[in-house]
Structure formats: structure tokens, C-alpha cells
């Protein structure tokens, strides 16, 4: 029997997902032995033309990481979708928008100005900002268009499965690869990691408070949290309340609260809203005299509760405006 054909591709991402595959260590040798990698720009020398030349549906599984914000990304993922039987959104950015998705708090013009004109460490005396087309001696140079906002992979192409995480942890990847190789797969659309909430698996759960007695929401550098103490007990926001388990308590074991990269649990659409719901119950009673100050001390709620999932939020302008005709992207 011929080996399954596999492709990897990256879009708006940091490269961490590619490293996560290498973090399989020796495990990667098993993967390489079991599959035929036909396309992986970061590791092997293949060209778009090689993919274009393949018959449609001839790649068995294509792993795509990163969100979508540029013309070339859209072009590549549409091509890979056509050539692949199954597409897997790999990592938080492809799954929910991830860290690049936070740029949807603003728009293209502001993002480019910040990056090319305002950052203090810049050296750009002529104020050059990337253009789609630039006239130079001897002709025109072109760059792919940069969109007004970041889209999740499944806003651009159909996605069969999701591998959550920033980046997905080796166990999550191995389990998914095993499932794919043996054909033992759940229904399409499933997120390939247990659907339970992080607190259920957290070794700090015994000290999780029923009510937060704190007068102020703290950031992690402002307090000392014991290695076995729930972060909430010290007033530090922990997204574990509304995050899918499966990472093996990666952050908690480094004494950092969960930031939510595995996304919402099964059945929840909006991770940030689910977090606020659970968090509000801990903050009660509602007539506590200092409630206003406590709420005010929660800095950047949107950026905290949607750190990895803003483009998937119901309150995100892409969703709010879907009936009202915001020009997209």
C-alpha cells in the first residue's frame, strides 16, 4: 500500500507551529516513515508549481497553520484545499485567529502605520510603507495585498478538523496523527483534543476559590502565586475557566496562568463570553460596594479573554457586521 501523502503550509503565523512538529523529536521519524511529505516550504524544497501539477484530491491530509490576511495566503490555501482530501487547521491562529487576530481590534491602515511609521525602534526616515505595486527602474514590483482584517482559516476554505494550541502540544499532535493514520477519526468539524474544561484537569483545582475576595484584578508580575495555588485565589485572571484541556497544564507548570490557547470547550462558540460568565459568578455578590473598582481594574478585557480567539468572537466586528455589509476583508 502506498504511504499517505501529507502537506504542511503556513500563513499568518510565527513559525512556532512548524517547531511544534519538530518537537515531536524522534516521533517525527515515525511520521516520516509512515507518510510521504509532498509539500512543506519550511523544511523541504518544493514549489507551488509542483502542487498545481498534482491531480485534485491527491494529497491525503494537509496541515495548515496561521490565520489569513494576505492575497497569497488565500491563493495558497484555496489551491491546497482543492488538492487535499482532508484539511486540518493546525494551531490557534488557523483555528480561531490566534495572536495575529488581535490586530482586528484595529484595521489595516493603523496596523501598517504602527509597524512601519510609529514603532520607536524603526529606522524609516522616508516613511516607506509597503505598497501592492511599486514602480522601479525597469518595471513594477508587486506585493500581495494586506487585508483590512484577519480571518480564521475556516472563513476562507472548508476545514475538516482542528488541532488547537499555540502551538499544539506533542501529545495533541501525536494523538491526531495516530487517528489519521489508522483512520479512526471523529465526525468532521471536531477539535482534536478532549472537550473538557482546563480546571477539571488542573493540579491547582483544590485551591480554586468559590468566591474571589480580592479588591483588584492583578497581573501575574504583581503577585507571588504558590506553585500549587489557583491563580484566581490571588486575583490573577486564568482563562482555564473557559479553555479546552489537553495541553497537559503547560502554563500552570511554569507558574503562569492559562491564556486560553486551546480555545473554547465543545459546544461553546465564544470563549471570552464563556469566561466572563464563569468569572462573574466568582466576583459576587453584585452589591459589593467595590464592584466598580474591581471591574475597572480588569485591564484590556477584550484582549485578555479573546487573546487567541478574537476573530471567532460573536462580538467581533466581522460577526457583528455580517448582516450589515462591512466591506470584507
Amino acid at each position, binding site marked *: 500500500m502506498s504511504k499517505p501523502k501529507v502537506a504542511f503550509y503556513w500563513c499568518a503565523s510565527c513559525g512556532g507551529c512548524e517547531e511544534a512538529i519538530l518537537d515531536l523529536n524522534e516521533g517525527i521519524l515515525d511520521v516520516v516513515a509512515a507518510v510521504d511529505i509532498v509539500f512543506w516550504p519550511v523544511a523541504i524544497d518544493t514549489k507551488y508549481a509542483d502542487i498545481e501539477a498534482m491531480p485534485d484530491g491527491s494529497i491525503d491530509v494537509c496541515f495548515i497553520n496561521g490565520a489569513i490576511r494576505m492575497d497569497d495566503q488565500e491563493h495558497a490555501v484555496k489551491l491546497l484545499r482543492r488538492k487535499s482530501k482532508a484539511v486540518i487547521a493546525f494551531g490557534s491562529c488557523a483555528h480561531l485567529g490566534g495572536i495575529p487576530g488581535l490586530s482586528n*481590534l484595529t*484595521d*489595516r*491602515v493603523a496596523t*501598517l502605520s504602527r509597524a512601519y511609521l510609529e514603532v520607536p525602534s524603526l529606522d524609516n526616515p522616508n516613511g516607506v*510603507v509597503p*505598497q*501592492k505595486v511599486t514602480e522601479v527602474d525597469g518595471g513594477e514590483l508587486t506585493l500581495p495585498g494586506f487585508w*483590512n482584517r484577519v480571518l480564521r482559516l475556516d472563513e476562507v476554505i472548508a476545514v475538516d478538523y482542528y488541532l488547537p494550541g499555540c502551538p499544539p502540544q506533542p501529545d495533541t499532535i501525536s494523538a491526531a496523527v495516530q487517528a489519521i493514520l489508522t483512520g479512526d477519526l471523529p465526525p468532521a468539524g471536531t477539535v482534536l483534543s478532549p472537550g473538557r474544561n482546563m480546571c477539571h484537569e488542573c493540579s491547582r483545582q483544590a485551591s480554586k476559590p468559590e468566591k474571589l475576595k480580592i479588591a483588584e484584578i492583578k497581573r501575574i508580575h504583581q503577585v507571588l502565586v504558590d506553585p500549587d495555588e489557583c491563580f484566581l485565589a490571588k486575583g490573577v485572571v486564568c482563562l482555564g475557566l473557559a479553555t479546552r484541556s489537553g495541553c497537559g497544564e503547560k502554563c500552570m507548570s511554569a507558574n503562569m496562568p492559562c491564556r486560553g490557547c486551546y480555545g473554547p470547550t465543545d459546544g*461553546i*462558540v*465564544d470563549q*471570552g*463570553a*464563556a469566561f*466572563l*460568565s464563569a*468569572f*462573574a*459568578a466568582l*466576583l*459576587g*455578590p*453584585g*452589591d459589593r460596594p467595590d*464592584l*466598580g473598582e474591581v*471591574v*475597572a481594574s*480588569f485591564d*484590556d*478585557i*477584550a*484582549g485578555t*479573554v479573546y487573546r487567541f480567539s478574537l476573530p471567532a*468572537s*460573536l*462580538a*467581533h*466586528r466581522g*460577526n*457583528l*457586521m*455580517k*448582516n*450589515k455589509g*462591512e*466591506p470584507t476583508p
Partner: protein
Amino acid sequence: MIPFQPKVVGFLCNWCSYAGADSAGARKLEVAPEFSVIRMMCSGRVEPQMVLKAFSEGADSVAIFGCHFGDCHYQEGNHSAFIRYQLMRKMLGELGIEPERLRLEWISATEGVKFAAVVKEIVESTRQLGPLQTARVQEFSERAAGGER
């Protein structure tokens, strides 16, 4: 041009505010037709997801009505509702949505007059705010229409 007709979604707790709405009806008070009622068992059952879903399905404002503190039939449901409301107002502002589009009021079973007055006030202030075409989205759209920089 057809004048803007605001859409307001109201989540009403069954025990106090829905009964308050009934009492407004019994008194034959006029209740603004732009206000669509969803009956919930308790204001504490109104998940932030439901509020955001209402906005994403086209509501220009969302209102949560519950029992006064001390009257909630599930004891603390309205306390959770109030804290969620405070947190969400702050977050909506950060997302470029006017926080005044989310409202919370305590209305008891006998406060039919208050119910009609509050609904009217919410509908009118939503009319003033205009459609949920957030200031920020408008700004983005105009800049995008302005072309490449």
C-alpha cells in the same frame, strides 16, 4: 429615506420582569413595538454568549430585566447578571461598541408603569445611537474605501 427602526432585544426574567410586562399590558399601557421580548427563567440565566449572539443577529441594543436585589427566585441570579453586565459593558467599549447599547434594569411584578417607561426610554436612546454600525467600523470602512496607502 426610511427612518431608522431600532431593534431592541429584551431578556426578561420570568418571575418579576415578565410579570411586570404583563401588568403593563393589563393596564393597557403602550409598549414600544421595537422591543422584542425573550422570556428567561432568571436574569442570571442570560449568558454573555446570548447577549453577543443577539448583537450579531442584528440587535441594535440588548436589555436584561430582572428582579430587584433580594427578590431573585434563585437567590443570586441577578447578582451574577449585574456583574456580567458590568464586565461586558467595559469589554464592548474596548471592542468599539457603545456600552450604552447594553442595558440592565430591575423591574418587579407590580412595576408595569416602570416597564413601559423604561422600554420607551431604551428604544428612544437606541434611535439616537443609530444602527449598530459601530463608530469604529465606520471609520475602518471609510479608510478601506479610501484605497491603498
